[in-house]
């Protein structure tokens, strides 16, 4: 079982090319997803505070 997993992860000797390629996609696209969601939530919270009439900061 572990041997089969190790063999799979080795990617026929191309592990050091295949996994970084997927890694960069996860980091860059995942980063964009996170950044988009965080900025959206922050703005929405700001708007909610303003509409309740409390001062910012």
């Amino acid at each position: 079982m572990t041997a089969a997993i190790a063999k799979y992860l080795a990617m026929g000797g191309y592990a050091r090319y295949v996994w970084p390629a997927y890694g960069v996609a996860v980091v860059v696209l995942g980063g964009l997803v996170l950044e988009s969601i965080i900025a959206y939530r922050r703005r929405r919270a700001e708007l909610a505070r303003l509409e309740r009439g409390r001062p910012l900061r």
Partner: protein
Amino acid sequence: MHRFANPARFMRLSAALLPWCAWSAALLIAVGLVLALFIAPADYQQGEAVRIMYVHVPAAWMASFVYAVMAAASGASLVWRHPLADIAARSAAPLGAGFTLVCLVAGSLWGEPMWGTWWVWDARLTSVLVLFFLYLGYIALVNAFDEPTRGSRAGAVLAVVGVVNLPIIKFSVDWWNTLHQPASVFRLGGPTIAPSMLWPLLIMAVGFMLLFFTLLLVRMRTALIAAKVRALQLLASDDTARPTPRARHATLDPAR
């Protein structure tokens, strides 16, 4: 198009569309990853390294597609001066830059084992690098002005002019002798790639496309909410400090 260009209508429409876009993007990318990493066969020449294709190629398609969207929105913003078109272009730029970066890095990681080099200044690779710098230049330019509308105007001109790079990218592999291979999916006479590899590729590509539209909608909504926040803050500062503007004028202009 103009019917959807009303910000209030956009907020309603995008709120309804977002969950569908987001969940179908997540589903397609998950299925695409399973197919790409477990089901798709190794290539008879490239072995397992061919799996890099399922990241590199959809990212490359998106790099050009997002630029086309950004340029179209920029053109619309120049012609009709509509703020939503402008917001669409600004929101698309970081996404396009991200896809282009993924395409370049994954391509480089594919080039080393298959071509024996990380990078070569052939027409395809160079024109995609230029595309990446166009995105970065656009982002820098639109943020370089104190007045947002001036930044948008300048950025829109850059985005529209930069469109000449798209056909150069597409046809670079035919016009010049490139190390990069010519098209094997979108070509006359049909794809020259086995269905067992084509399907994972197409599913990943549609997943990336849906991810782009999801994030575009989120970022456009963020920009619209930010504009509303700014307007409310201006209003609030006007209410609390009513006498100040007049007082400031008096000191600046003693003759009055």
